[in-house]
């Protein structure tokens, strides 16, 4: 966990602690979780991104994360609402958002891309596939891809 919330590279938005642990473990294994910050629901994600409430004063909106890994099914504010808020605000619209979800519903996929999601990945049940999916997306988005920031 980074000490400075303004130095976060990866923001993981995931309410399922087991999924979060497995994701973080995989990224760590490949040395990509040094600047990872985990929030447990959509509400906290919005507070973090827009530097509101508990992040007021400690975070600056001018220092966005390089990548957001976003679950869809979450209590209070769900991932689609978070995505919409990010992509409709010009200050945050450029942040790459990867949807990482259990849902393979076509309607969800269509909606997310329409709202401006940068990728849509269905979490495989099989751990071998899951691990390789996390590893690949980490490599691609953190190392290979050129960040707008």
């Amino acid at each position, binding site marked *: 966990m980074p000490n400075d919330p303004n130095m976060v590279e990866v923001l993981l938005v995931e309410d*399922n602690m*087991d*999924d979060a642990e*497995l994701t973080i*473990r995989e990224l760590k294994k490949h040395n990509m979780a040094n600047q990872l910050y985990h929030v447990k629901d959509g509400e906290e994600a919005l507070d973090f991104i827009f530097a509101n409430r508990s992040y007021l004063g400690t975070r600056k909106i001018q220092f966005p994360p390089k990548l957001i890994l976003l679950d*869809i*099914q979450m209590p209070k504010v769900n991932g689609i609402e978070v995505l919409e808020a990010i992509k409709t605000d010009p200050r945050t619209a450029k942040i790459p958002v990867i949807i990482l*979800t*259990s*849902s*393979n*519903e076509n309607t969800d996929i269509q909606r997310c891309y329409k709202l401006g999601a940068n990728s849509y990945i269905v*979490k*495989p*049940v*099989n*751990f*071998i596939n*899951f*691990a390789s999916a996390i590893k690949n997306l980490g490599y691609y988005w953190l190392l290979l891809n050129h960040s707008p920031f």
Partner: protein
Amino acid sequence: MIEEVEDYAIILLDRDGIIRNWNKGAEKIKQYSEREIIGKNFSIFYTEGDRQAGLPEKLIQDAIKNGKALHEGWRLRKDGSLFWGSIVITALHDEGGQVIGFTKVTRDLSDRKKSEELIRWQKQEIQDFMDSLSTFCAKMDREGKFLLVNKAAIKTSGLTREQLMATHFVRGPWWANHESSYQMARNALQQACLGFATNYETRALFSGRPVTANISLIPIKNSKDLVEYIIVEGRDITTQKKAMEQIAYMARMMEDTCEAIFSCDTTLRIRSWNKASENLYGIPYSEAIGQPISETVGSQLDNDSRQEILNQLYEFGHWKGETKHIKKDGTAIHLLISNTVTRDDQGKIDGFVSVVRDISIRKSLELQLKKANEDLEAFTYSVSHDLRAPLRGIIGFTSVLEEDYASKLDDEAKRIAGIIRKNTLHMGRLIDDLLSFSRMGQKEIQKTIVDNNTMVREIIASFTPRGKEQGKINWEIESLVNIKADDHLIRQVWINLISNAIKYTSKNERPLIKIGSYPTKDQQVFFVKDNGVGFDDRYKQKLFKVFQRLHAADEFEGTGVGLAIVERIIGKHGGKVWAEGKEQEGACFYFSLPF
């Protein structure tokens, strides 16, 4: 004195009929002067026809024989004009009884004759008039005895004129022995005698045919206000009666049907409104008739839509659709409405008839179904997300255990960890299959032309990677016809059937899979036949049921959903699925699709 009588022509004839004496009356009637006529034969007064017929001679002979001869007939005046003369020729005898001559008295009855002719002519006119009527028509006295009958009455009765004239109205053969008909005739006659006209319907026999007759009795009174005679008219109304009954029946049908039927004229004012309409809208006939239709039924259409429907009606003659009306009590009803134009005798549109059916219940069921489907969708969504997540955790952490603690786990522990992973994965597959089965039910089919040949070859290629098993299975693929179906769903059917065939022939030394198709009367049948392990024919009904398997899980892997999906897809296309098989001898799966 005789010479001076002017009203009678009195002539004296000799034995031979020669005129010997002539009086003033004779001169006045016959126009001859005494000088002109004395010495002429009296046959001069007779018409050419009568003379040739020997009438004058005959009259003389009669007078000789009987002493007297009487005759009436047309006679000639000097100027050639005719008059109606009544004559008496009387023989004159001498003392010895010998005829010596005759007196002939002639009276001019032309005026009397004229009025008689008139009466006779009037009578004939009445008879002709009555005969011209096609209905039974007769004049009878107060007793019911006929005085005058027309030709139609004779024909209708089946009697001769004389027989009919001798028949009594109440006892005529036309009542066909119906006691009630006799009774009605009797009553009608009584009423007529009392001065009341009557008109009634009765069963009768006209010209030997059983008919429904309309009988009218009209009493005719004299100057003293007494009934002098009675006119009776009988009319066969069988055809009209049947037509009326048919019309009445159709009206009853309209009234009794449970479908609301109403109509309006071209100004859209209500012309008819049946009982079902009263019930449906809660508006009685009296309040509906003549009223503007749109307001009465509570139409929710705007003017443009209404005009559009009217245009359609004028152009095509009918319009069908679903619509919403508001009942009198304010409740909304969903209706299936069918409008048709009505036309007058000339074929000109004179209005519209509507048949409406209340489909509110169906609509509400549809809504419920939609809601249920939405609930199911939400449920499956939740299942797909929430059931998979824990599985990922189980497998994930079992794998973490295997990876991170490999050195601390002995072989048995590693085997057990493998079993946990395998079972969890199987559960994941079950969930996925169940979800796709459930989604299949909600999917709407979108038909295009499906190229079965290409599709089947693609699928086979995807199952048999190059080099590996390609050589093992012997494929026999007939040319398959194209069909109109949902491309994506039919692909799923082929995938499931072909993958099954591969799976169940995998333990066979020389697997053979045959794919083909043939047409029946109204369907195209496709089949996938293999020489694999087959199945027990007794359980073939279970094959297509979800989660039903005929093989143990350790023998052949599977979730028991594949064929259920096949059945669901084919069912949605209006086709059928079935299978034939024998244990250890192979199986054949068929599906049919309508042309």
